[in-house]
């Protein structure tokens, strides 16, 4: 790895006078301080301004609680499907060459390029109750739009690339020889996968899944169109926060925001820790 070689040089060893380094450092600190630390600080100050009791009352408000619970539930269902399908897709993309495989690989990032609001609009157009497919499904008792399946579908769409793009590089780095050794020793393909490959890619699967989970906790654009936003039924936490801002209940908005943020930030820290364990080098930057 090049990084080990790069570490032999200390940054200041040959570089000219350090003022350039100091001013870069100052610019980075001020930029991140103003853009990120400041919003974070004002949110916490505002949410806890009136004390822990008020904060607790806001997050245990039944509608808020139901919204947070629904958000976590939908994100969890989506994450489970992503973990399985993402791993399978990454495996297929790295191990097999077939007609259209390169095109397939370039289309993986598509959900990153589509505005999530547009994703929501598309889902309503296909599955909405006044549409052909939607009406057909509804006649058979399946409601997707303005119901929970629509929320999960929207989340699956927008987080599709996460697990694939975290597992793929790890799969590529696994030496083919290790698999071949397992086969030669009499292991079946399935045994090779579960006993040799899976343990090596598990941290990547978990990181990708947690990232998609964190992303789903905050999703707004697609959900607001698809879910119908019925309190205690299809109202998710970000949409609840939006409603509280609109109705001037800033306390309620900031309390639930802090809860959501704490949740997703914990997950991000977990991802960082996992990646450090996996790569060792990630901690350097």
């Amino acid at each position, binding site marked *: 790895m*090049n*990084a080990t070689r*790069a570490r032999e*040089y200390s*940054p200041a060893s*040959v*570089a*000219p006078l350090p003022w*350039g*380094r100091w001013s*870069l450092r100052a610019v980075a600190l001020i930029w*991140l301080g103003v*853009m*990120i630390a*400041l919003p*974070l600080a*004002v*949110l916490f100050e505002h949410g806890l301004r009136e004390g822990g009791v008020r904060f607790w009352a806001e997050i245990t408000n039944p509608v808020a609680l139901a919204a947070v619970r629904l958000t976590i539930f939908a994100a969890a269902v989506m994450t489970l499907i992503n973990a399985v*399908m993402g791993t*399978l897709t990454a495996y297929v*993309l*790295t191990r*097999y*060459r*077939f007609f259209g*495989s390169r095109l*397939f690989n*370039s*289309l993986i*990032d598509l*959900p*990153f*390029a*589509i*505005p999530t*609001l547009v994703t929501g*609009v*598309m*889902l309503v*157009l*296909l599955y909405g109750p006044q549409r052909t497919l939607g009406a057909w499904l509804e006649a058979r008792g399946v409601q997707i739009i303005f119901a929970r399946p629509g929320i999960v579908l929207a989340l*699956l769409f927008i987080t599709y690339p*996460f697990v694939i*793009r*975290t597992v793929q*590089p790890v799969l590529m780095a696994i030496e083919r020889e290790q698999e071949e050794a397992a086969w030669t020793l009499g292991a079946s393909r399935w045994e090779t996968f579960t006993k040799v490959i899976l343990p090596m890619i598990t941290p990547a699967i978990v990181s990708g899944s947690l*990232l998609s989970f964190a992303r789903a*906790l*905050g999703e*707004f654009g697609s959900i607001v169109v698809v879910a119908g936003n019925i309190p205690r039924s299809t109202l998710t936490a*970000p949409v609840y*926060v*939006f409603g509280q801002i609109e109705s001037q209940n800033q306390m309620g908005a900031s309390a639930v*925001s802090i809860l959501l943020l704490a949740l997703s*930030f914990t*997950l991000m*820290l977990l991802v960082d820790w996992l*990646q450090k364990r996996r790569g060792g*080098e990630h901690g350097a*930057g």
Partner: protein
Amino acid sequence: MARDSAGIESPPKARKRAESPRGLEWALVALAILYPAALMAGPLLAILWGALSSGFGAMARQLTSPEAATALKLTLLLSFAATALNTVFGLVVALVLTRDDFKGRRALNGLVDLPFAFSPVIAGFTLILLFGRNGWFMNLIDSLNLRVVFALPGMLMATTFISLPFVARAVAPVLRHVGQEQENVAYTMGAGYWRTFWSVTLPNIRWGLLYGVSLTFARAVGEFGAVLVVGGGVTRFTETATLYIYRSLDDRNEVGAYAMVLALAVISFCLLWLMEYARKHAQDE
């Protein structure tokens, strides 16, 4: 090899040893293709069908209406401005994270990822808490006679915040991979920081940078929740393209919504192409 979070790194080149699937392996391949096809192709076709059946003439009329044209212009203006800011400061942050060493650099590293954990709604909300009525800086911006909330500056800050990590996260792994040898050689030969950056560092990271820039732009164009909260979506004033789609659906102006979705789709596909182009080149180097 890239191993940063959020799936925004470019995976290394596909292994040359990938093989054709045989027998049951075709079932895996079929599953990997049919899942995204079922998830995404339906909604994509639905919107294409809707757009085509409303006719290009009608859509063109909608798109050239003053409201739609202003919205599209505003989206492009915000996206270019946010991308420019994030490119410059993202480069500085990436350089500090990989080339500098000081106490607190680890914390800085965690701070960069924070916008990934923020729901867009919450991001917009923090700006209201900072600059809105009773906000921390209300007196300051009042005395300067500025408007931030429900005006362009707030929307630009929101868009910048939401797309902040992409450039830094795409460039940092490349900087680490390239190492400092060439830069140190340049310094030894008497080049200053500026010269070294332009003629050594930048050419080395250009494809990773392009990948990060296109992700930033895509995220900025598609932003909805944050600009809705902080801008209020006032027609012909703070209404962006995504907000225009949202309002058109509410007003049952489906043709207008389709027209804007198609306009955004064109931008999305250009960006997806740019991402793939950058990724392929990044892999080849």
